[in-house]
């Protein structure tokens, strides 16, 4: 079969990074990119790298921890967590916001960069879309888990019921229900549409009949007809157009969970933009955290090049600055509003029982990332990776700040309290981390983690720069 002769390519030992100006390594043609990316998918499991097995196993361990945590939660109650009165929300909501934030990079890269004609998105959009889906899956768990009576979660959906009662759509939590489920669905659709032609490629290049059959079904019999492509591109463009406001709306609505309330530190108008920026910030951080190891494990330095990492790093820097602006504004409001509760809240953040987390967050989200101004730093892969981790942590701390420090000392002094997460809080959190990683591990094995046909286009454009321009019209 046509594919056989190319198998070697995937076995090339080390592929050099073409550097910060190239979005794809030299010597690629339509076949080789197919082979390189598709090859990973249909390599027989005997030849899967040990790294994968170990990683997947560890991740799976944490999935089991998550199961245990849920068991304890359902049968003993929310009391096993650290939440109390006044701090009614703890890890669950922190993690929910954190995950949903991470889930924003994918759609953003796919949709917004697509509309902005950023050709460097091609090698990372598929992967970050997958990341989005899995992050949203993790995020989606928490609002249900954190209910006092999770088995009644379906009451949040408007369905004809014998009580003649309906959800209360003035509540931001109700908005969340729609926002998150819509976001999940649309991301899935977007991701799947992107996959169809590549699934066809896998079908046509996979060595075994059963593989061809499976991917044959998944690709719905795609045959690359010009007219299909035409409708396909239109649909994709529209989805991109729809996802762009969606991605912005989702985190805006998540920020409403806080902004709509009257709690000092929550009740603020800066939240929507600064939540969205924060989401993209953490999203790009997570993308970097994942693709940097990925490209080296799977010999894809020539497909995910320094160019991509550099661009993502710049994005991080940019959004990070918006977030910094958000913090500054919070401080400004606290002072300028002259509201005693607001100013106390901010003072309490800086000096109160949770001051450490606040200063750590400033360090992680604002101080350290400034090093990304330097080209040398951005081009030091290891350093960028570390920074991406730092930002992930920083963004988690930000959510901790918002949720906990605002609640623990609100209006009436007699009711002030303290929040200490329990082991089950941590178990649930790390459990979802494991779940996320496990899905990622499966994804890179089962599906093309880079959009093959888009890379083909890139190959084509590189050959014919002139047309590359026209084609986008």
């Amino acid at each position, binding site marked *: 079969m046509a594919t056989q002769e190319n198998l070697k390519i995937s076995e090339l030992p080390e592929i050099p990074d073409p550097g910060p100006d190239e979005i794809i390594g030299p010597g690629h043609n339509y076949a080789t990119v197919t082979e390189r990316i598709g090859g990973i998918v249909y390599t027989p499991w005997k030849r899967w790298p040990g790294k994968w097995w170990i990683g997947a196993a560890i991740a799976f361990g944490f999935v089991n921890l998550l199961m245990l945590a849920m068991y304890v939660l359902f049968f003993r109650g929310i009391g096993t967590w650290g939440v109390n009165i006044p701090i009614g929300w703890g890890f669950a909501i922190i993690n929910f916001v954190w995950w949903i934030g991470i889930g924003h990079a994918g759609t953003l890269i796919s949709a917004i960069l697509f509309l902005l004609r950023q050709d460097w998105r091609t090698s990372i959009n598929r992967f970050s879309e997958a990341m989005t889906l899995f992050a949203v899956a993790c995020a989606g768990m928490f609002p249900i888990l954190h*209910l*006092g*009576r999770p*088995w009644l979660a379906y009451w949040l959906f408007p369905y004809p019921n014998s009580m003649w009662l309906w959800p209360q759509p003035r509540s931001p939590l109700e908005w969340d229900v729609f926002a998150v489920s819509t976001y999940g669905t649309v991301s899935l659709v977007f991701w799947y549409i992107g996959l169809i032609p590549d699934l066809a490629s896998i079908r046509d290049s996979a060595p075994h009949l059963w593989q061809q059959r499976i991917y044959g079904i998944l690709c719905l019999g795609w045959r690359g007809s010009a007219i299909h492509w035409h409708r396909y591109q239109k649909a994709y463009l529209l989805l991109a157009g729809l996802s762009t406001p969606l991605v912005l709306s989702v985190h805006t609505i998540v920020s409403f969970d806080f902004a709509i309330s009257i709690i000092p530190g929550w009740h603020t108008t800066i939240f929507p933009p600064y939540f969205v920026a924060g989401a993209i910030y953490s999203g790009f951080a997570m993308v970097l955290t994942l693709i940097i190891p990925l490209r080296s494990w799977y010999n894809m330095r020539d497909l995910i090049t320094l160019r991509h990492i550099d661009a993502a790093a710049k994005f991080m820097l940019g959004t990070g600055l918006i977030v910094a602006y958000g913090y500054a504004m919070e401080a400004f409001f606290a002072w300028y509003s002259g509201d005693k509760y607001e100013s*106390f809240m901010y003072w309490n953040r800086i000096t109160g029982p949770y001051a450490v987390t606040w200063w750590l967050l400033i360090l992680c989200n604002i101080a350290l990332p400034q090093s990304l101004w330097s080209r040398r730093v951005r081009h030091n892969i290891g350093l960028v990776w570390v920074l991406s981790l730092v930002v992930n942590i920083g963004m988690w701390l930000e959510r901790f700040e918002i949720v906990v420090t605002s609640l623990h000392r609100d209006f009436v*002094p007699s*009711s002030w309290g303290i929040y200490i997460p329990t082991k089950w809080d941590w178990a649930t959190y790390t459990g979802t981390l494991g779940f996320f990683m496990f899905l990622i591990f499966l994804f890179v094995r089962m599906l093309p983690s880079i959009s093959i046909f888009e890379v083909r286009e890139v190959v084509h454009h590189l050959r014919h720069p002139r047309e590359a321009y026209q084609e986008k019209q």
Partner: protein
Amino acid sequence: MKHSLIPLESLVEPVKKQATDLQALREKLAAGRGPAFWRTLDEAAESEELREYVEQEFPGLSGQIPQGVDRRSLLKVMAASLAMAGAAACTKQPKELIVPYVRQPENIIPGLPLFYATAMPTAGYARGVLVESHLNRPTKVEGNPDHPASLGSTTIFEQGSVLNLYDPDRAEIVMREGSISNWPTFTGEFSTAAQGIVSRKGEGLAILSGATTSPTLINQMSTLLAQNPGAKWYIHEPSVNPAIRSAAKKIAGKNAFVAYDFSQADVIVSLESDFLNNGPAALAYARQYAKRRAIDNGETPVRLYAIESCPTVSGSIADHRFPVKSSAIPAIAYQLAKACSVAAPDAGTPAPDWLNAVAQDLQNSKGKCVVVPGEFQPESVHLAAWALNSALGNVGKTVRLLDGVEPDNTHTLEELTTDLNNGRIEMLLILGGNPVYTAPASLNFTTAIRKARLVIHLSQFSDETSLWSHWHVPEAHYLETWSDSRAFDGTTTIQQPLIAPLYENKSAHEVLSILLGKPDQSSHDIVKGYWQDQLKGANFEAVWKTSLHDGWIAGIAANSINAGGAVTLPPLQQPAISDLEVVFRPDPTIGDGAWSNNGWLQELPKPQSKMTWDNTVSISPKDAQRLNVTIGDMLKVTVNGRTTVGPAWILPGHVEGSVTVYFGYGRTASGRVGNNIGYNAYAIQDASTPWYAAGSISKTGEHYRLANVQETQTMAGRNPVRATELAEYRKTPNFPTAEEPPLDKATSLYPEWPYEGHKWGMTIDLNVCTGCSACIIACQAENNIAVVGKDQVARGRHMHWIRVDRYYAGNDIDDPEIYNQPVPCMHCEQAPCEVVCPVAATVHSNEGLNEMVYNRCVGTRYCSNNCPYKVRRFNFYLYSDWNTQSLYGARNPDVTVRTRGVMEKCSYCVQRIQEVKIQADKENRPIRDGEIQTACQQVCPTQAITFGDLNLKGSKVAQQQALPRNYGLLDDLNTRPRTKYLGFVRNSNEALSGNTRKS
């Protein structure tokens, strides 16, 4: 036995309650709903059934109240949860049985509660109560408005007493040396033993009881003592100071009681007295004090000086508090006497500068002032107080001397111990009480008690004393048996039972009548028999019925003694303790320890410390600083070489050089709730100096986790409580809103929501709230609020629907201003909690109630987050005890028992609102003002809480909300609370401007 429970539970449907419609109640009771009908076969059957299931359920009780949540079995949890999910989800309802009567007693209409008048004796003295009964199941105790010692209110203990009745740890059967026996056997053996004694004219017979005023009991005893001159009656009441009576006796020359009338007082000086909260007349005093505290119509309110070592409830609302060592009070009393030109021995020390101002104030209001001696002060202080009062011409006006109602010529525990040690006692009969635990350590009572050949102990719990007794007889709860008791003023109440004894419970009367040779007499026969003799002639049955119905016997009261000769003050026994002083006090919520197995009282925050489930060593900030002690540090307290170790509590306002320890804890045989918590203060108590003694403290280095419900002690720059000086108030009556005017109605994006019908509202008058916390526990009893245990409280998960915040203000931490602020749900018209609930589980009724629908709640807790008052409570676990069936009995059938994972909060006692509405509607009449009383309002001793219809012209609540002192908590958030507060006005003495607190 599940179904035997159903008659109680399946009848849980709205019922007609008449707490406030007393006339109707009278008619009902007068119409022969009295005791005569009580012991008919029907009730007997009913109670049999009750008894049966409780006994059956008892052995395998799994639901410990404190840690119960950890022991819930998966099935219970799911069943409970599904039950709540109920018809809503696609679930089938479980099969439910109805078990009708075989013969229905004619006075019982299923679904309608009955109210019976009776009385609960505390330290012997009666407080009249009305007990709500659902199908012969007492569920709630209210004060009897016609009873002089209650006036419709109760203390925390009456409220808690219901839980004791159903306590699964109660003693159930007669025990003989630790093995199960029964009443007949006991009667048999006891009578034979008694015959021996009687033949020797009672030689070697000792009877120990708590303080009592029961005419029947006293009569039984005197008969007994008459028949057996050799026998002796000893009385031990651990938390009552015998000096009160001995002083009164000295004053009157006979058994007497000194009563006060604060409704006439302009100035009150308390010599470490907690008269508003402690003692047989506390409720009456609180009501009088509140009356004299009124200011809204231009009256000049009473001025209260509190001179005390450890802040008391009364001290917390005093206009001036002077922290003084407890042991220095006698000197102060004498100095005060001198300053008021009363002949008094030299006090030794010079008088503090403020004393003259106080004396001056007293003299300026001759005949209109009161000097109240402290309950735990020695005779000298009581005498000095009397001398002062008579010198100031108060006697006959604000101070009255009444005939004593307690038995005379009884002996003390000390004498008993000596007699025991001398081997003079063969048979010791202990009627109630727990001397082995409560006896001062100096007496070594445990060694003494062993000297008796036969010890018989009658008590509700098999406690420390029972372990040292040969026989233990389960004592009947006051709601289970016939008896009688008298109030401080002699008012006599027949205590009628509301339920037949749940177990083999017997009353002191029944035990005594064995000694009197009538072993088969029931309490009913004994009590009724006694009164038949007393109320001769007059148509007895009628009198008897009315007395039972009213809760007091007409025409029986103590006559007042107008004698009260001049007293000569003895020289000071001992000078003030110069080094550290250890003050002994009964615990504010557990008392002398008798209540220690009561979860409600254990979880009730102590009025000052707001701390639960433990007793602490209260220490002043200065001393704490000196010894580098922080809250929770374990302190070793040593008195006369005896030591105990307890956690420190830094109590602002506590006098320096003194620590206060509390009785009631450190018990080993209390029950699942009360065992092994806190330390035992009796272990360092010395019989010679029982209430304060020289001692020492030292840090052990350990730290102890205390569960308190209020972390922050100050108002942190906000002013939830708004207070001012009287002078200021006169200038700006609207002082609470002068600085922070509430937003005007226009400041809203939304159109006004109209409330045409009823418009429920509440006001809380901070000017009279003493922080006694009765409202908290009344609410708990009324609304089936769960007990969560120490650990959960420490995690900030207590469930009280109304809390009493206590703030310290002023600039002197050693002598701060103390403010109490009860905080129920505000029922905001623009409720932040409602808007954020995604399932409409909390919405507004068109009468303005902030409804919380448990069965719709999915538990997002967003409402609580968004509640600026943080009055919402969440069931983080299955807190309600669904296992311990005996506790089912205590539940109010009109209120849902909440399950795991749902939010709950104050409902303005909506079940009461609904019942009155239905009643009025059926009678086709409007609801009268004050007809609906919330539980917290009904119990409040100072009537600080008012509830009613704001749309009803001239309703009390509407008037109060129109007062200038009226303000809303966090008004500036524009939540439009329906619950409002009336600002606190302090009537300071200008002459003491130095000590005047700035507000």
